[in-house]
């Protein structure tokens, strides 16, 4: 079973990621690199020094200034895109299921990244990163990504900062897309800061189910936490639901403000959104 079917793939074919920061990478991609190199896009001039590629000497400038200048071009490099889908048990909730929606979103991001010749890494996590899969570099590698995502199962409790600390990182800039419901006991702050520390352009995709946005609960209930098994007894009334929704709204607003402060792209998504709409929401 595939995560995204061909219709969905077609819809997202034309989308591409908009990345603010240039990335460093080994393979050539279509991202602007800080490294000046062989590219068609002009960047700057500097004086020739021995060892430079003499093919890049600007002879017109030599004619005007009688000095040797070398044309510098923005080297286009591939962007390493790190996708972090949350596979904790809290994601396995809602109709449509959040976990499935997270996988679809991860697949969609991977797909458009591969289309842009970026390398993709899939890092499923709960209380630790359950493995770094990749790099996937070419469009043809998408099938592997899809298969990988289709094989994931929700398990364990989530702890983003712990998960990242024990993850092996390669040096260099990149794009990190974190897909989670944000309902973490220890929060996301530490983890996001860590990603920023690792020079990542972070996209935080907060994925919630419609049932979380507007719980359809009523009466005397025993609410059990899907991750910890803890329970509280509540008698759900209209006013309590109102307060819950207000609390959720504040939570999202607060998270959004923090993300803006950190320079993190923050998007709230619901699991009933089609994958192309989710991607558009992230990009725009």
């Amino acid at each position, binding site marked *: 079973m595939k995560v995204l079917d061909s219709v969905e793939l077609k819809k997202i074919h034309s989308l591409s990621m908009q990345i603010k920061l240039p990335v460093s990478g080994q393979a050539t991609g279509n991202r602007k690199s800080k490294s000046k190199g062989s590219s068609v896009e002009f960047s700057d001039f500097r004086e020739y020094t021995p060892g430079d590629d003499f093919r890049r000497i600007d002879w017109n400038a030599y004619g005007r200034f009688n000095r040797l200048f070398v044309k510098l071009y923005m080297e286009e490099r591939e962007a390493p895109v790190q996708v972090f889908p949350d596979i904790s*048990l809290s994601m396995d909730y809602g109709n449509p299921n959040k976990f499935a929606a997270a996988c679809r979103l991860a697949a969609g991001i991977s797909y458009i990244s591969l289309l842009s010749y970026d390398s993709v890494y899939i890092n499923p996590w709960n209380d630790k990163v359950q493995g770094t899969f990749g790099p996937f570099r070419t469009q043809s590698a998408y099938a592997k990504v899809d298969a990988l995502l289709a094989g994931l199962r929700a398990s364990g409790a989530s702890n983003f900062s712990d998960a990242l600390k024990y993850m092996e990182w390669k040096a260099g800039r990149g794009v990190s897309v974190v897909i989670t419901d944000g*309902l973490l006991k220890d929060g996301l702050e530490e983890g996001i800061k860590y990603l920023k520390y690792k020079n990542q352009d972070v996209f935080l995709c907060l994925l919630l189910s419609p049932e979380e946005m507007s719980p359809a609960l009523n009466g005397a209930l025993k609410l059990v936490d899907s991750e910890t098994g803890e329970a509280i007894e509540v*008698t759900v009334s209209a006013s309590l639901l109102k307060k819950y929704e207000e609390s959720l709204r504040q939570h999202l607003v607060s998270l959004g403000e923090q993300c803006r402060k950190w320079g993190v792209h923050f998007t709230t998504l619901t699991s009933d959104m089609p994958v192309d709409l989710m991607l558009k929401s992230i990009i725009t």
Partner: protein
Amino acid sequence: MSFETPFGFIGLLAIPLIILLYILKQKREKVTVPSLILWSRVLSDMQAKTPWQKLQKNLLLFLQIMAAILIVLALTGFSILHGQNAANSVIIVIDHSLSMASTDIEPTRLGAAKKDAAEYIDVLPNNCRVTVVSIGREADVLIYASTSKKDIKKSIESIQQSSGYADMVKAEELVLSLKREDPDAQIVLFSDTPLRFGNEQIQFSEYKKQTDNVAVTGFTHTKTGENITAVTTIRNQGSSEVEIIVSLYGDNEFLDSQWVTVPASETKTVWWDRIPGTVKTMRVSIETEDILPDDNNAYEVILSEETVKVLLVSGGNLFLEKVFSLIEGAELIRTSPEDEIYEGYDLYVFDGLVPSRLPEDGNILLFAPPPNNLFSVGKWMDTPEVGLSDHEIFKYLDKLTFSIGRTRIIEKPEWAEVIMEHNGNPIIMEGTVGNLRILIFGFDLLETDLPLRTEFPILISNIVNEYAPSRGTVIQRLFTGDAVQFRLNPDTLKAYVHLPDQKRLLIAPPIPAEPFLDTGEPGIYILEQIKDRGSVNTFFDVNILDEWLMEKDSYTGSTGAGTEYKMSVPLQKTSFKLTLPLLSMVIAILLFEWWYYANRNYI
């Protein structure tokens, strides 16, 4: 603060039950949610805003316990006492006459009156002097000018229901004399009748909800040949016509029954014919229930008229011979005075002599006794004046006058009582020697005009009825509370009275017996006299006096009669019953609980 029905406190058992139900509270539906983070945050925010969160956690439990307590208080008839009585001295008058046994007020009128009186005591100032008077056939001071509320309440509690009427005259006399001693005292009356005490203002707590009572007010009989005919009068004291069943019982066996319709406030006579002559006791009973069951029965004893054997020992007295022969049921034997042993007669009449040895089995009547061993007899006194006497032998003889030529000068012995005297000299006297009753006429009948009077046979008949032992024990027309002096037979060794409730009381020895006072219960009583040769039983009946009639008469005799009486003011009820406010609070709590349950956020 008082509780009308303390049994309601059983309801407090509901409180542990409520707590138990809270311990075993409902199992909630389990719902898995992704995370409790937001829920916990909502709840902790709300708790932070609630200063009484701990209480709130169990608010519903507290509300339900409070509601349970309030319901229990309502069930117990909880009431609070309020109001201040400014009086420093109070005379509490409690009517315990028969009508106060009516059940139109729970438990009875008297029960309610005693309870209210006790509550009234509670709100009096501590230094208030309280006198408690109970009024029935007698008016009694139970406690005088006491300031001990405990003792006052005890005296109120000791008042027992009586079967008699309230003697208004006695009550008025007593209360007014108490009032004279303490002019500032406030009179507070607890009764079903607005009694008057002169022109004194009283506070009146009335106990009468309805008057639907039918009473047997009269029951008597006559012998018609072999059979007995009885007549019963029944009065309807209510304000509507009633149809009742009246039954007649003979010797506790059912004899007859009749449907009787008695119009409102009227009296109906019911006849009973062909009652077997063998019946010794009768009871008539109203079988239909009313508010006062005590006056639904009346009792009647059929007297057996035994022949009285009279021995006349005389030198010749034609008047005595004739008059005794006229008396129905009396068998006269005449003998001449000889010194012999007299035996076998009920009444010995010695005319002009006193035997040296008194008979032992009958009473004695002496006329013009000569000097003897029993008492000192002197010469003659001429033409003594005859006064009137209310002694039994002069019953029905209010207008009797007669003249005496001369009478013996007699020194009154210690054992004798004077019935008639002139200048300190007894003319007629009576006494008891051993078991014998002796009636002494100091004069000779032949020296008076008494035998010529039309009342003479009545006098002798009275003497036979009073002094013939078999007649002497006949007790007629007794009412509850009456004292009775039994004339026991001279040869009685021991005597008992069997009460209607089967109890047996020893009344003799000592002989003569003390007056018998235990006639509080209406019914058939039996006087049992034990002799050497077996025992003799005499039945007598005790009935309830017609309270309605007696109180009416008594009321007429009191000073306030005939004038419009406006001095009675209703007693301010000092207790406020909280049943309605309590139930209102319960409803308010339940409404609040419902509202809270509908709007609460957690338990």
